[in-house]
């Protein structure tokens, strides 16, 4: 890494006085996502569990993980909800656009679930176990919004 890059938490036009570190593992995930549309997890050397988002420590085994593995990009809906009530998004101070699909996605090859939007064009297809794939943003900045949402695939 040649230059220091900051992860930007966007709040529409407003700045927020927070500077969160995502760590080396988080940085690697976002770099691969931005540049190669690839998704990475880390694998526990003891129990073999694959964690997404990647992290340094397997909490159950309390050992350091060093092996990165590529997961997805396709997967299944592990669980989900469809948010219908209006609430203020503390990230923006504005009302979150509802309804939206809130998915917990199990990427192929991963053991934990990755949280993101699910497209709810056809609500009848939003079910646990349904196959999904990510819709990548054309202009990627190296954050979780580089995936726009997940959509159901037949």
């Amino acid at each position, binding site marked *: 890494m040649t230059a220091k890059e900051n992860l930007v*938490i966007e709040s529409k036009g407003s700045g927020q006085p927070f500077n*969160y570190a995502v760590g080396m593992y988080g940085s690697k995930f976002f770099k691969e996502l931005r540049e190669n549309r690839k998704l990475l997890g880390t694998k526990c050397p003891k129990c073999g569990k694959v964690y997404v988002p990647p992290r340094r420590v397997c909490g159950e085994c309390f050992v350091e993980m060093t092996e990165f593995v590529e997961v997805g990009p396709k997967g299944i809906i*592990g669980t989900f909800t469809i948010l219908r009530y209006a*609430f203020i998004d503390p990230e923006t101070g504005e009302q979150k656009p509802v309804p939206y699909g809130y998915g917990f996605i199990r990427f192929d090859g991963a053991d934990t*679930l990755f*949280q993101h*939007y699910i497209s709810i064009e056809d609500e009848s297809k939003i079910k646990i176990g349904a196959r999904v794939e990510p819709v990548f943003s054309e202009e990627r900045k190296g954050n979780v919004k580089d995936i726009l949402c997940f959509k159901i695939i037949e």
Partner: protein
Amino acid sequence: MPKKRVAIVGTGQTYHKSHRPDVNGQELINEAVKRALQDADLTIKDIDAVVIGNMDHFEGINYVDCWSVDGSGGIMKPVIKLTTGGTTGSTLAIGGYQLVASGFFEKVLIIGWEKNSESDTTGAITTAFDPVWDRLVFAGAISGLAAEAQAYMAKYGATEKDAARVSVRDRKHACNNPHAQLRREITIEDVLASPMLADPIHLLDVCPRTDGACAVIMANEDCAGKITAVPDWIWATANRHKYTYLGDVNWGELDSLAGASREIYAKAGIREPKKEIDVIELYQPYSFAGIIWIEDLGIAERGKGAEYIWSGATDMGGELPINPSGGVIACNPIGATGLIRCAEAALQVMGKAEARQVPDVNFAISTGFGGCMWSDMLLHGKRKPDF
């Protein structure tokens, strides 16, 4: 092992409402403290230390341990704050227990409170979750609970109607509790016809937002019996955490509650909780938890929670009444909620629960639940523990 055995000797609650503009935080706290002291027939001079807590980012006012001392009675006494999310109230109880059990303090005043009307609860809860990985889609407590309900329904075939039966039970029970916020009976049809907030959770499946405070006085075995004829002995406490991110959760089972309950049962020698426990005050923030979490407690077999609820066993007069107070669905001043479960369990053991009293309570359980699916638990008993 505890150095001293510990009992609850007095409790006090405010009259909880959705909005208490007549008092500020400190005055609300004082209401509960005065009632607890009165209940135990003690004065503030008798109190050796104060444990207090709420979700301070809910009101956007930090350090309640400092600014509340006029109302809490903490002036020139040791005061500590505990804040652990939804479990704040139950953690306060466990923390207070440990202070007395350690032998360092004889009588401790424990206070939980919240003025949810002064904040945006969903926004505040969201700030408790990871800004990078959780917050994009997370929408407060209801979104995570909805994910749990969906996973459980897909696995075991439970229905929205099954969950509605739990709301109907708790709202009926709440009519017996003068401290509950929502004291009107509802029907299964009312629940199913109420607005869908996050599939499959309807408005009447979830807890309200409440202003309220609760205070509990714990004393050690040297003085508990002198303060009150029937103390509520704390037999055991347990606390479990399991996850970092919401995507790590084993959705559909509450592993933390299962773990906490097994520790409690082992400590107290309880083999058949359904028969040996007489009443449960369950921190149950939504109806589906009333089905799922009794399985984690070992009260119903996996997938059989709904059947047990429909049998009426958890209603007043049933085999194992759950939430005689009306529970969290009828009243939820968040930082006080877990401590109210503890206080209500104590009232049951002490025989002071009035219209909501379950007869002949020897053992009661109170629980707390929070954030990334973690759990607290206390076992209350009429008899002094053997250990």
